[in-house]
Structure formats: C-alpha cells, structure tokens
C-alpha cells in the first residue's frame, strides 16, 4: 500500500483540478440535476449547500461513480474521465465518505483498511498497521488501529472512513453531511481535520452541509444548489450567511398565488405547545412553544435538521416528550401517544410517505388503516363500504389509482394524495402536515397546496412543516422558525419576508 506516498506526490506536484461539465440527470420525470457545472481544486474546501432534494447528493454520487449522468462529463486537467464505478473514482483519486459508513462493524480498524486495499492474497496486517500509524500522524487523524469498529464512537468511525479514503490514495475527498451525526465538540475537531487536510496535505475537499456556521469556518468557496441548478458559486469570504440562506431558498416566484386569508384572531387556540422538550444527545427539542387557532395555518420553517422532524414525531406520538405540555382544545394530553393524539382530533401527514403507509397493502386498505373499527362488521370488514369509501376518495382527491392496487406501486404524487385523503376523511381538528410536496411535480404540488388551503378554510388548524420557504410564505398565516431544536421566533404573515425569516433560520436574529 504505497498510496500514502501517492498523496504526497500529488500535493507536491499540485493535483489536477476536477471539472464537472454540464451534468444533467433525471429520474423518470423528475429532473434532479440540470446542466450543472462545478470545479474542484486541490488544497481547497468547496462547500456545497442546498435544501434536501436540491441535487447535492446526486451530483456527488455521479462524481463518485455511484450514478451515471444522462449527459455531461467529468474532466481531470482537461482530460475526460470515465467514472462508471467507485473503483474508477478512486483510481482517479476521488474518495467519498457517505452519510452511512461503509465499514465492516465487527472487524478491527486494521482489517477494514486492509480490506480497502483489495489485495487478493497474503494480507500483511502488521504492515497495514505501520501504514495506519504513519498516515494517522501525517494527517492528524488519530485512530486506534486494533479496536473493533463497532466499539468506537461515531466520530472515530468517521475518522476511520476518512483515513481509509486517504490511504487508498485520494487527492479529492467528498464528505456528505459529515457533521449531521456529530455532537458540537466532535464537529469542531472534524473541522480542524478538514483544515489540516487542505492546508498540510493539499487535499481538495467537497463539504456538503446545511450548517452556515461550519461553512463560514472552513469553506474557501461555496456553491449553492437549488432545484437541480447551481444558483451561485463564489468565494466564501465574500458572502454572508444571510445571503447564502436567501440563495438556498430562492427568490419569490412571481405569480405564486397567495392564499385568501381570513383572520379570526378572536377564536381561542386549539393546539397549544408549552415549553415542549425532548432530551437527546444530538437533535433534541428544547422549549418549543406555539399555539394554533382553528382555520389558521402555522408554518414551521428552518434549515433542515433543526428539530422539525423531532417536532413532527412528537405530534404524531412516536417520540415521547420529556418536558412541557401539549394541550388540545384546552385539555392537556396525559401522554402523547398516537392513540391519544388521534382521539383528541390531531391528524398527521408524515414527512416520509413511504414510512407512513404499508406498501404491500392495497390502496383501500391503507386508506382505512387508521379507522379499521369503523369498517369492521359483525363478522368481517365491510369490503363494499371500504371500496365505495375509497372510490369517493379517489374521485374527490383526484387520485390516479385502483382501490385494489398495492400502495407501493403508486407514483409519489398519488401516494401523497391517498395519505391526505386518509388524513382529511377523519375531519381532524388539527392537521400536522410535514413536507407535503417534497419530490412532487408541479401539478401535484399545486393540488396538494390547494387541499391544505381548503382544509384551513373549513376550520382545520394546520401546522405546516416545510423546507420550501415558498410554500410556507404562500400558505401560512404565521411562520414559526426553528433553529437548533427551538422555536426562535414567530412572524406574522404580513411581516414575513425572506429577509426576516432568513435571519431567524441562520440563527442571527433573536
């Protein structure tokens, strides 16, 4: 394994720069990347920023050979590269640490790294050990070579992954949201490692992240992806967090319809969260308070990973709260189980439509999963009533599906409509709706939004959690912004702007 020396040579000679030229990639009808160009340079940290679904991971998968572009090419120093597999990528000096580590958990660090060197015969474990110790010292990545991987904390496992990539000779390293799994102290030391790799070893690093603070600390350049396109690529020290957030969430689309709002501040709130907290090592909630009135839409905005998922889990009953109270219609819930929330009239549309339904069951069965008793006859389920209920939902919600079709065979838009039909056929007093249009096409998106507006018109209180700021500004009466697991501000619709919300999202204003 003389790959470590390879790195030395590469940095000494100045590694060739990598250029992704006019990359386009579509999945079915969804365009994930549209004519994206990006260049990477040795000894530079290039931050890649964007919302979920903006195309960051797809772009990096293409660079690492996990996915093939529909058009466009990758060049190294002006020469076209053929990257059809991660093996090709590594041969070209490109390494990647994905969000899910590819380590064999029950093996030692040495064995894992020896595995990556892919020699068929006679593995020289002692030699690998020496190389690890040398590389650890060189890159400032201390790892215990003899430890079993599963016994190491996540931060150290991540180091092993990085070291593995470096030792296989990469001069470019892609880190896909590396700090998402780390606590604050580990984040600082990872950022220090990134700095050293850049400055001392001359590695070119792509850092995918949502977090402004990290980007400010280590990035030399920042590129922002939005809806599959690079909307900005600039030097990091020439741009502020606020500007980045604005780039990420985009400009107000002209012609976006504003919902008719009928203020009814006289009514008392129907859902009240008071100082709700969930204790977790990373990603908990603290002091979340808000209230929603009947007919009102409360938008929950925030950069991904600031507690929105946890909040939705609390309101669906799958995460128990550790402090604070939840009141529905003035009555405090004893515990927030799915059953007690449903009984109180709270309905939910989860952020992941695949996790919210049973793929192997039929559409009609999924549609009544939350009210099986209602259709249970004396002896058996009243299939005819179920089918007619389903058919009327199919008509009412414009679902393109057969009642007896397996749910898993539906398109994303139709899955979402089935789940919305299930939610609204309960006539919930409060509807918790999370990322309702993620990954949907324009038609389906508009339809789903009109459904939400309609529900609020009929008096349902809606909590709309979305990473799409357009969606929130279009629909919400008030916008609550989450930052690091807390609600840091609630802005009335009339005062909500990209600036005011962007500042709250970036954790600047308080």
């Amino acid at each position, binding site marked *: 394994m003389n790959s470590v020396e390879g790195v030395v040579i590469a940095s000494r000679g100045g590694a060739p720069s990598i250029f992704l030229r006019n990359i386009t990639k579509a999945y079915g009808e969804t365009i994930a990347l549209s004519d994206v160009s990006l260049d990477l340079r040795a000894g530079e940290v290039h931050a890649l920023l964007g919302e979920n679904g903006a195309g960051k991971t797809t772009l990096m998968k293409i660079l690492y050979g996990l996915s093939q572009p529909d058009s466009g090419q990758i060049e190294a120093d002006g020469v076209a590269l053929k990257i059809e597999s991660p093996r090709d990528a590594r041969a070209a000096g490109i390494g990647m640490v994905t969000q899910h580590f590819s380590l064999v958990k029950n093996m030692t660090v040495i064995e894992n790294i020896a595995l990556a060197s892919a020699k068929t015969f006679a593995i020289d474990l002692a030699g690998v050990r020496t190389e690890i110790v040398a590389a650890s010292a060189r890159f400032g990545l201390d790892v215990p070579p003899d430890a079993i991987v599963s016994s190491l904390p996540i931060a150290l496992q991540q180091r092993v992954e990085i070291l593995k990539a470096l030792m296989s000779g990469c001069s470019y390293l892609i880190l896909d949201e590396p700090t998402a799994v780390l606590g604050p102290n580990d984040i600082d030391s990872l950022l220090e490692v990134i700095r050293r790799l850049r400055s001392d070893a001359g590695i070119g690093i792509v850092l995918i992240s949502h977090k402004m603070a990290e980007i400010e600390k280590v990035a030399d350049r920042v590129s922002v992806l939005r809806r599959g396109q690079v909307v900005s690529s600039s030097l990091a020290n020439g741009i502020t967090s606020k500007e980045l957030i604005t780039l990420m969430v985009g400009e107000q689309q002209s012609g976006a319809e504003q919902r008719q709002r009928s203020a009814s501040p006289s009514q008392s709130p129907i859902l009240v969260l008071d100082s709700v907290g969930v204790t977790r090592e990373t990603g908990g909630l603290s002091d979340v308070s808000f209230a929603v009135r009947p007919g009102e839409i409360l938008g929950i905005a925030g950069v991904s990973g600031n507690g929105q998922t946890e909040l939705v889990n609390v309101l669906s009953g799958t995460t*128990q709260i550790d402090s604070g109270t939840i009141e529905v219609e003035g009555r405090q819930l004893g515990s927030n189980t799915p*059953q007690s929330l449903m009984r109180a009239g709270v309905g939910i549309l989860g952020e992941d439509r695949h996790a919210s339904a049973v793929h192997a069951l039929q559409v009609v069965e999924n549609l009544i999963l939350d009210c099986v008793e209602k259709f249970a006859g004396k002896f058996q*389920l009243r299939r005819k009533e179920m089918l007619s209920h389903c058919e009327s939902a199919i008509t009412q919600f414009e679902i393109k599906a057969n009642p007896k079709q397996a749910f898993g065979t539906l398109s994303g838009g139709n899955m979402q409509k089935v789940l919305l039909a299930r939610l609204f056929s309960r006539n919930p007093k409060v509807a918790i709706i999370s990322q309702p249009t993620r990954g949907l096409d324009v038609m389906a998106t508009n339809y789903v939004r009109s459904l939400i507006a309609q529900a609020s018109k009929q008096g349902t209180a809606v909590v709309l959690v979305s990473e799409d700021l357009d969606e929130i500004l279009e629909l919400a009466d008030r916008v609550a912004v989450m930052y690091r697991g807390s609600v840091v501000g609630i802005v009335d619709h009339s005062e909500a702007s990209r600036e005011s919300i962007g500042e709250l999202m970036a954790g600047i204003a308080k």
Partner: protein
Amino acid sequence: MIDVTEEIISSSLRIATPLALAALGELVTEKSGVLNLGVEGIMYGSAFVGIATAAQTGSLTAGLVAALVSGALAGLIFAFATVTLGVNQHVAGLGLTLLMISLCNTANRIMFTADGGQVRVDPWQPLNFGGPIFSQYWLTYATFLIAVPFVWWLLWKSGLGLKIRAVGENPEAADVAGIGVAKTRYTAIIIGSLFMALAGAFITLAFVGTFTVNIINGRGWVALALVIFGRWTIGRLLIGAALFSLVNAGQLQLRLLPSFADVPFEILLALPFLAVIVGLAISGRNVPYPGAYLKPYKRL
C-alpha cells in the same frame, strides 16, 4: 391398486392434519412480523399436557382444553420475550422449544415412566362417512373444513387481519395510524400458538393415544418450511402440506412391499424430509418475507 391409492390419500390427510394446523398458526404469527421458532416446543408441550390431563381426568375434552391453555401460555411467554422485551426471535423461539421439550420429558418421567410404564388413553376414533378417505378423526375434518377457512377469513377478511398484516409489514406506519403494534402482535402470536397446540394435541389424543420422547419428531420444523414454501398464502401452504404428506404416506406403503425389504427403512423415512428440502430449494428463493420480519418495534 385403488385400495392402495385410497389408503395413501387417507393416511396423507391424517399426516397432514398436525402439519396444516401448525403451519396455519405459524402463518398467522409470521404475518404480524414475528417468526415463532417455538412451534416445535409448543406442539411438544400441548401433546404432553393434553394426554397427561386426559389420563388423569379420563376426559379427552379436558385434555384438549388443557393443551390449548398450555399453548396459549407458551405463546404468552414468547410474546413477552419478543414483543415486550425485544429479544432476538431466533433465540427466544429455540429457547422456548428446548424448554418445553425438557420440561415435558422430565414431567413424563416423574409422572408416568418412572416405574417402566407409559401414559395411555383411549384416543378419539375416526368418524366413518364411507371409504377409507372419509374415515378421519374429527380434528382432521375440523382442520380442513373450519380451521383453513377461518385463518383465511381472519387474515384477509377481518379487521384484525388487516391490522396483523399492517404491523407485519410496516409497524411505524401502523403505529401512527393508531394501531397498537404490541397488542396486535400479542394477539397474532397467541392465536398462532393455539393452532400449534391443536396440532400437538391431535398427535397424542387422536393419532397415537400415548406419549413417547421425541413424539413431535420435527413436525414443527416442517410447518415452518411449509409457510415459506407457501409464500405466506394458504393455498400454496396446503399444497406443500399435501405434497409432504403424500410422500410420507407413500413411503409407508413402500415399506410394506417385499421388493423394498432390503432397503434400510431410515432411507424411506428420510424421503419426505428430502422432499421438503427439494421443495424449498426450488420455491424458496426470492420469497416475499413480511416487511418487518424478525424486527422488534420500539418507538423512538
């Protein structure tokens, strides 16, 4: 020849009865996402408890009831371990099987065989509706005329069945939809255990009328294989049970032929199990396991 054919079909139905009952029980359990490897042990336990109670009370009905109670209790223990405690299902199931077999063997020795005797009852007699094929135990009729339609109805027509299938495929989604995942799995496991108990009781109270060590003789494992062979559908499961039983009944007849006198009987005895392995090798690939198979469910 017709006599032999009728005889083979008739004994196939007898042989298939405990297999079908146990496999139906396993099917209900597995549809909820739980693999019950305790099936062999639950059959063993109810076979013993059934005949022991019948011998003590002189009532086969009392024996049957006791066998069902023992099955339900064993199921409850298994459910507590796997659903409530989240213990590995393989470990809990095999542990239950070993426990039941040892407990019953010990009790059998203390109660019946210490003085060289053996527990015996007058078993149920076949009800003859004409011909060897329709001369079967009442439990055989009940299995194919009542239990099979019942399980089909339970899983695919009833509200409970919908819940069982939902928690077996995606417990998270079921939980958010207000379905009690633990409650549903407990129910499925206990219903399944009752069927396994019926299978065990059939063997001692109808088939043989006595209890000997190793009386279940791997029938529970065959039932497990049948569920996979059947791809979690009742129709295919029954086809599997029929094939196994036919091979088994056939080899019993073969043993009577003079030309097979020199063939060691163990080879013929192994034939049905060989059929299971061949059957699984052919049809056991890419089987549609329930989505949450073997996965304990816990809220975050």
